[in-house]
């Protein structure tokens, strides 16, 4: 599915790629201007997190569209695949949409000498968990909405709440700890905190490792339930 829906979409509808890039690049630009370049490394690190999180959440639109409008989900129910395969297929399609943005941020990260082998591998791990968690949230939303039109508004709200409010683009120590833990309901928060830690931009907070892991497992579990593979 990632090949068919991901790569073919990139080739035939460039707007998906531009849409996934526009917010992180705009915020990167603003942060660069406002902080006089001092916080740009946070914005680059956060850009990775924001691209993955916003693409993961954006998949709710397609998941709902496939289920309610195109009836593609029902079509796939009577095949060899299960709800997790279907979710992963759509999720990996959206990872494909993220690739151009990730490459751009990787170039910027290299420019600012952010990467080592270890922190790059850890970042990939964090981003994979974040992909699963945010895509799972999108499937929960897609399973709950009764009409496709409802999903667009929800995604817009969640994109802000789950990718801009969390400390993706600013040092996590700037906000009180209780607020940080409140924002941790978004998997982008532990992902961003861990990313800032592994890139030595902020102190490493090990509490966020189980938070991200548990959230990912919980959201995926809920998504399997709410994806309405076989409706009751």
């Amino acid at each position, binding site marked *: 599915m990632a090949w*068919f829906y991901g790569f073919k979409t990139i080739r035939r509808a460039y707007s998906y790629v531009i849409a996934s890039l526009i917010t992180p690049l705009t915020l990167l630009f603003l942060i660069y201007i406002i902080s006089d370049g001092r916080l740009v490394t946070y914005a680059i690190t956060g850009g990775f997190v924001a691209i993955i999180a916003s693409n993961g959440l954006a998949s709710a639109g397609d998941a709902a569209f496939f289920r309610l409008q195109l009836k593609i989900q029902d079509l796939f129910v009577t*095949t060899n*695949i299960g709800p997790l395969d279907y979710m992963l297929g759509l999720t990996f399609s959206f990872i494909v949409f993220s690739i151009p943005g990730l490459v751009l941020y990787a170039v910027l990260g290299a420019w600012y000498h952010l990467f080592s082998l270890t922190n790059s591998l850890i970042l990939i791990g964090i981003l994979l968990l974040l992909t699963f968690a945010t895509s799972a949230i999108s499937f929960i939303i897609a399973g709950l909405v009764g009409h496709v039109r409802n999903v667009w508004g929800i995604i817009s709200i969640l994109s802000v709440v789950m990718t801009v409010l969390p400390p993706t683009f600013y040092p996590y120590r700037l906000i009180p700890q209780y607020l940080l833990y409140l924002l941790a309901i978004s998997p982008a928060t532990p992902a961003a905190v861990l990313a800032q830690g592994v890139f030595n931009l902020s102190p490493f907070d090990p509490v966020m490792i189980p938070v991200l892991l548990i959230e990912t497992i919980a959201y995926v579990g809920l998504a399997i339930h709410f994806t309405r593979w076989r409706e009751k």
Partner: protein
Amino acid sequence: MIRTEGLSKVYSDGTRALDDVSINIDNRFTAIIGRNGAGKTTLVRILSTQLEPSSGRAFIDDLDIIKNADRIRKKVVSIPQEASPIGILTPSEQVKLYLIARGMTSSESSLAAKKSLEDVGLSESLDKPTDMLSGGTKRKVFVAMALASNAEIVFLDEPTTGLDPISRLEVWAAVRKLDGRIILTTHYMEEAENLSKDVIMIDSGTILERGSVAELLNRFKDKVRIESLNVIGDAFKVGDIYIKYVNEKEAAEYINKGVTIRRISLDDLFVIRGVTVEH
């Protein structure tokens, strides 16, 4: 054989979509006819393991739809009502994606997709994005999926709803090429008559009639249908139209009386059962 025993479905909003349905289906073509909301889609979605029943049991070739759903899914294809292909993909990609999901390898699926799309007359459209294709052509993409899958049982839920008459004929031609047993839901009576030997008539979640088209129409033997906007004796009233069934000889008396005389069709089963007919 497809078998249901006391199958019922009540949705969470309290709607009773199926009520104690017990049927056996074992013909090459079976049409489930009924108006919108009659319970056709619910029945097909339950049988194709997309929806769980509230009570009762159903079996596909002796496999329980609840306990053996995974095995049933290998045997059946179900094309949902108003399904539409992913617009950005070509018919060829769409069918391949589906076949890979059914367990075929990439090379097997390429060959099968090409052959099936050619078989349903889409050789000219293999590589065009499906959002550039007509409604009828899009429906044929789904028929090609069913054809390429070699499924033993194919459920087609209102495969021609919304299509123009020519597209409908083209889809029927494609459907006739399908192997296995075909269970088709429709509210177009001529579709049921054209494609099916066996007809199940459903309304308000219950089975009203069952039989071959010939058997079901036998009660109208030697009769024709007379329609009028004016009262014509003990006629059925459907909307603004009065409908009466008379012998062919008797029909002559109505000529020049402003009535329309029609041949009998499955529509008339709905009329005599007091169910509003959809045209």
